[in-house]
């Protein structure tokens, strides 16, 4: 299998799906002539032309709504937000139109659309350009929310998202575009939405991590192995719908769990996972559920402060040692 970056894996997924289905088109700011602000869409304008790969004005509410309308009339748009920070302007169309259309039309109008782009913490761009918004979108029935952490997952999940008949929020991680990994080159390779992946098997403590926190959790697990603690790392990959069964099964095995995320702790996805564990596996727990979250502050600019705001390997190790009563 070829080894490629997440950026290249996403590019392959979009290219293959544009080639596979005429109804699929890509639109967003700088996706065409500029090759994408993060180069995810490199070469696609040349290959598919301006009808299928469309540069938009900076008008997020407008083009998000335009995409939803196009989906109502039979197309399958991929709408790129240059970053998910800008999707905040488009939330009326994502939430009030895309998420609810099927329901409020009594099942007549489904919205096959993918809203994708980078999210989470970026490198020193301060508060407005560096934030994790998945818990917002995961709150709404009607949306699916996907967050890949490896090149193979990125490709397989994005292809599934484009083929899905519902609106999918597909949040890539801005810091991870250059991460490399093996990716199957079979054009029919897909990964189903809603299925968690056990990234590492272990017996003593379960670490649930997504997106940027997956490599952090895996590094922590390596170090903890040296300290004699066997960690199981689970990546839900899709946060709505959440594959809670896989998490519960793991907790029943290890009896201890750490939940890592880069988003704020209040009303976060891990707050939900924690509640599910309490409801479904309370009697299996040998220690309280421990969350490791991003700091509950707007993201600062200064490197020293930014580092403090994002969970790192050391904090995950400390949390695991805490639930294992090692310190």
């Amino acid at each position, binding site marked *: 299998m070829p080894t490629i970056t997440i950026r290249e894996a996403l590019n392959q997924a979009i290219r293959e799906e544009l080639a596979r289905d005429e109804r699929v088109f890509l639109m967003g700011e700088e996706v065409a002539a500029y090759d994408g602000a993060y180069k995810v869409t490199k070469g696609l304008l040349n290959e598919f032309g301006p009808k299928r790969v469309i540069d938009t004005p900076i008008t997020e509410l407008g083009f998000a*709504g*335009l995409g939803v309308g196009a989906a109502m009339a039979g197309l399958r748009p991929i709408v790129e937000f240059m970053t998910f920070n800008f999707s905040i302007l488009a939330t*009326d169309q994502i939430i009030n139109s895309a998420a609810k259309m099927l329901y*409020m039309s*009594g099942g007549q109008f489904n919205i096959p659309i993918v809203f994708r782009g980078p999210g989470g913490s970026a490198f020193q761009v301060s508060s407005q350009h560096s934030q994790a918004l998945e818990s917002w979108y995961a709150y709404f029935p009607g949306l699916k929310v996907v967050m890949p952490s490896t090149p193979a997952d990125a490709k397989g999940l994005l292809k599934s998202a484009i083929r899905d008949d519902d609106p999918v929020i597909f949040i890539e991680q801005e810091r991870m575009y250059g991460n490399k990994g093996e990716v199957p080159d079979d054009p029919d390779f897909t990964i189903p939405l*809603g299925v968690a992946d056990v990234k590492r098997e272990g017996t003593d403590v379960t670490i649930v991590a997504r997106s940027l926190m997956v490599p952090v959790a895996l590094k922590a697990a390596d170090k903890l192995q040296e300290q004699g603690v066997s960690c199981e790392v689970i990546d839900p990959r899709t946060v709505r*719908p959440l594959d809670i069964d896989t998490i519960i099964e793991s907790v029943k095995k290890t009896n201890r769990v750490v939940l890592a995320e880069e988003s704020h702790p209040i009303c976060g996805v891990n707050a939900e996972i924690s509640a599910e564990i309490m409801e479904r596996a309370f009697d299996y727990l040998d220690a309280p559920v421990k969350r490791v979250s991003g700091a509950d502050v707007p993201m600062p600019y200064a490197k020293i402060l930014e580092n403090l705001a994002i969970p790192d390997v050391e904090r995950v190790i400390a949390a695991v040692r805490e639930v294992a009563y090692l310190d």
Partner: protein
Amino acid sequence: MSKQTAEPRSAAGAEEKSSTGVLDDPEVDRQALKQDHDTAKQKQKERLAGLESETLIELYRQMLLIRRFEEKSAEVYSAGKIGGFCHLYIGQEAVAVGALSAIRKDDYVLTSYREHGQAIAKGMSPESVMAELYGKATGCSKGKGGSMHMFDKEVNFLGGHAIVGGQIPLATGVAFAAKYQNTDKVTLCFFGEAAVNQGAFHESLNMAQLWKLPCIYMCENNQYGMGTSLERAMSLRDIAQKACAYEMASEFVDGMDVLAVREATARAVERARKESLPTLLEVRTYRFMGHSMSDPGNYRTRAEIEKYQERDPLKLFSSTLKEEKIVDDKTLQQMDSEIKEQVERAVRFAEESPLPAPEELYTDIYANPIDPSHKS
């Protein structure tokens, strides 16, 4: 137009309220009103040329159906048969009927929450609309949408949308799809004048002209965004002029004259179908009722309401048709009783229809539901 509208009143003027709940106003100039009506009628008569009697009678019949349907909606709403919000279309019937008579059956329509009239004019049955108001399983949206969210895929009625202006980007996208798919279908998007202050309006018009999309933006200027008059809410009140900002074609249209609306829409449809270009139509109209059923409308003057009642689109059109000997009183009376019976049938259908089954709560959330226990 703006000069004839009353000055906004301050809260301190509340004691001026009359017993009818509307603001007191100087003497109504009845002669001026009559003259206004006669001028409008003269213009309407000039628009009759080339139209079959059958077409004209059908236009009137649809307007009357909407009027009677809405009167009945108000009645059953007051009786507690329907819930939520209920925004009536009384006074604006000429807009829906005129506009929708100028498009094809397979053209698309999107609109706001004041939608019962447009739904019926697009070809949805009064039964399915009334049943939706009743929240019944037989409603056009299976009782999940209600007054503000009616849809019918069969007639390309793509919904009532209830965030002011929210349907404008959607309609732009529907027009985008029609062009992408190489069809010659056009999209008609209704919205009120208050939606023009939303960013969604401006973002959409910019893209529509930039990408030459076959979309007709039909602004129904009824002069009030809920209780706030246009004068209190908009710096440039000639809405059609705003199209200049996007180099888009536009027209002012008399929304109380069904034939004026039909003609202007036909010109916009031609532009959309033949040249794939959008148009902004500002259709000046008036709603005779409050914003919704809970609104007594005491922010408007009696003189203003009377002025527009004199321009009632049904009164104007029936008077034209009678004077031109296209219909007589007997025909109109017979039509009215038939329509009243049609509306009664819709009410009976709604009353007798089943409620949604409790299981319906959890259907139609996803087209591809994912079973969380599913494993690849």
